[in-house]
């Protein structure tokens, strides 16, 4: 009790100044004592995480010539140019549709898949392996395969749909922005399913059987058991799955690049492919592209924080 009052009086923010400490140097040294052990990790993080972020933010303030040569400081001009891009607003809106749509569908389907993989049935091991396949295959390969399957003249999708009688004429799926976006979202869901369903499967396996037994004894039905017991207990797993998927899907480049390159124009671009195009395809402004990268970085931070807030995160994602 006495301690607390004293600490408040002395200013809790600077405990180093409390008279009991032997000497400032010694205290600093003691604080630094763990450094040899965590030092390498800090250096690694600084080198591969912090430094690129700083470099990115710095580049967004530079004037980079169309040839790629750095010409000097550019202030906020890159940001002005970026926000003056005609396609930007629709690209950002499309990014939201893309991320929310893909992640939502992925999680709903994965919940079902996770349940299936958790059930006991003959051949379960084979099914579990089969679900991993889209994960093991390269995303670019998957996207290219779908690109061919959706081809106007040779694609198998048109052949099948015509054979079944759903369409009369072949459809140039990837040429129409809306259709193309839906197909690409489907591919994104397809490649996100394995990871998500396995995270959910892992979550399902941590739910103790006794809880279910108790529910059965109390006479809860299947739906009630699922929504009142399984889902709440899956929360940590869902949280991890959702956040990792949001980040992955937001940053997803190969699917869109392999299937439409964001075209026609910027009509199927997300902010990730748009960023690439600003630097390497369009008028070739590396600085403006870096500005887009900074905006993307902030967006994804905000998106994740909003999500954490919405689900009332209290550190439960940590083990």
């Amino acid at each position, binding site marked *: 009790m006495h301690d607390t009052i004293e600490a408040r009086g002395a200013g809790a923010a600077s405990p180093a100044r409390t008279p009991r400490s032997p000497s400032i140097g010694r205290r600093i040294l003691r604080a630094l004592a763990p450094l040899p052990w965590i030092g390498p990790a800090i250096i690694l993080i600084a080198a591969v995480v912090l430094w690129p972020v700083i470099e990115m933010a710095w580049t967004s303030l530079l004037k*980079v*010539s*169309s040839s*790629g040569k750095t010409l000097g400081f550019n202030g906020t001009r890159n940001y002005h140019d970026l926000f003056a891009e005609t396609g930007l607003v629709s690209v950002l809106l499309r990014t939201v549709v893309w991320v929310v749509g893909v992640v939502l569908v992925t999680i709903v389907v994965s919940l079902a898949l996770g349940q299936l993989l958790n059930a006991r049935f003959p051949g379960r091991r084979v099914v579990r392996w089969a679900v991993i396949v889209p994960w093991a295959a390269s995303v670019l390969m998957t996207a290219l395969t779908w690109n061919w399957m959706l081809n106007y003249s040779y694609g198998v999708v048109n052949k099948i749909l015509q054979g079944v009688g759903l369409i009369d004429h072949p459809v140039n799926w990837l040429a129409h922005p809306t259709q193309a976006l839906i197909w690409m979202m489907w591919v994104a869901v397809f490649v996100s399913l394995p990871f998500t369903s396995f995270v959910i499967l892992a979550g399902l396996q941590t739910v103790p059987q006794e809880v279910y037994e108790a529910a059965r004894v109390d006479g809860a039905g299947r739906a009630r058991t699922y929504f009142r017991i399984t889902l709440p207990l899956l929360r940590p797993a869902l949280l991890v799955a959702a956040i990792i998927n949001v980040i992955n899907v937001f940053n997803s480049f190969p699917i869109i690049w392999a299937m439409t390159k964001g*075209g026609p124009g910027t009509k199927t671009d997300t902010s990730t492919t748009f960023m690439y195009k600003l*630097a390497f395809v369009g008028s070739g402004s590396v600085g403006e592209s870096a500005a887009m990268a900074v905006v993307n970085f902030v967006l994804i931070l905000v998106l994740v924080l909003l999500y954490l807030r919405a689900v009332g995160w209290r550190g439960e994602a940590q083990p």
Partner: protein
Amino acid sequence: MKRHLTGVIAAGLTVTLGLTGCSKGSSSGDSGDNKTIRFVAAIYDDKTKSLWDSLIKTFEAQNKGYKVNLEMVDWTQMDAKVKTYVQTKQTPDILNYNAFADFARDGLLFPTSDVLSPQVSSDILPSFVEGDKYKGTQYGMPLLSSVRLFFYNKDIFKKAGISAPPKTWDEVKTDAQKIKDKGGKGVFPLGLPLGAEESQAEFFMWAMNNGGGYVDQSGNWAIDSQANVDTLNYLKDLSKSGLTQPNPETTDRKDVFNQFAQGKIGMLNGAVFMPAGFINKVNAKLPYAIAPLPTKAGGTPSTLGVQDFLVAFKNNGGKKKDAVSKFLNFFYQTNNVANFQKEEGFLPVTKSAGDVIGKAVPYDKPFIDALPNAKFYPTGNAAWGPLANTVKEKLGTAITGDPKSVLSELQQTAQKNG
């Protein structure tokens, strides 16, 4: 305790510094030797690499101690790679690319007079030299050129009852309608690639035959001119009437060239390299013929000439000038350059190679004849590189959107870049 800790930190720092030191050392190591040059070349087809390989082998045998490290880059990767080279200061010593003016503006290049012997310089065809200059100084060296002409499938034309290739835009439309009606199942009347691969070329070919283009008589940007708007409206109408392949805005040139080779397209703006690169691979007996590009009202047809360049980067204060110059002068020897262009199916860029190829390849004659009326991109303008990329990206959207607003956006891009 204190000494121990300091020791550990010191050891840790030494290790990290040592590591970064090593990586620095190895990256700058390759530039130490003034006789070794790095050459980044574009892949035109399957043969390109072996052509360069054998040229380099001969060069290295003739010039002891000199070495050329060849890197092949696909055209789809080229823009991104080149920009990264410049930004990370890893420019090759010689680059094969389709633009040079913004490098010249930023002072990255040797003027050609520094690296080419006077004989070679004077051997370059005069029609190309103008497009090799930035502000009056020549920086680009033409590697090869191509000219576009109108290709049509004689079988499809016969089936549709068309006796001669169309000369005017009205004839293009009526002929396309005939092909649509009678040309056969699954045949698209006109191939119109306005996708991201090369829409800047396709648009220019139609626009120049309507008196339009990228710049006006005095060299100012004129992308949003009425002639250009009319051109896009005409093409938009063709597409809407179902006279082209579906969705020109997402169709790449290679797609329609392939379909033409398969006999699925009646007519299109083809290129000199189409037989070597596309038709002969699929069906060498394809009954095609070549004609001048159709014009709006039947005037003198112009066509698009394209030259790709070699440029020499002034790396490390230009200390490799001697080696770069040796290799370039070697390449521009008549037989070397002629053989390269002949094998690749492109047109010559030097007078002496022109004589060799003109005799050896009769197919090239109509294209060489078309050169005097060919128009080139404004490659000497530093804004052209970025503009071309934006055109590729955005022009196709005019087919589904509003041509006028697309063109005025492009006009703004051009003016913003200079």
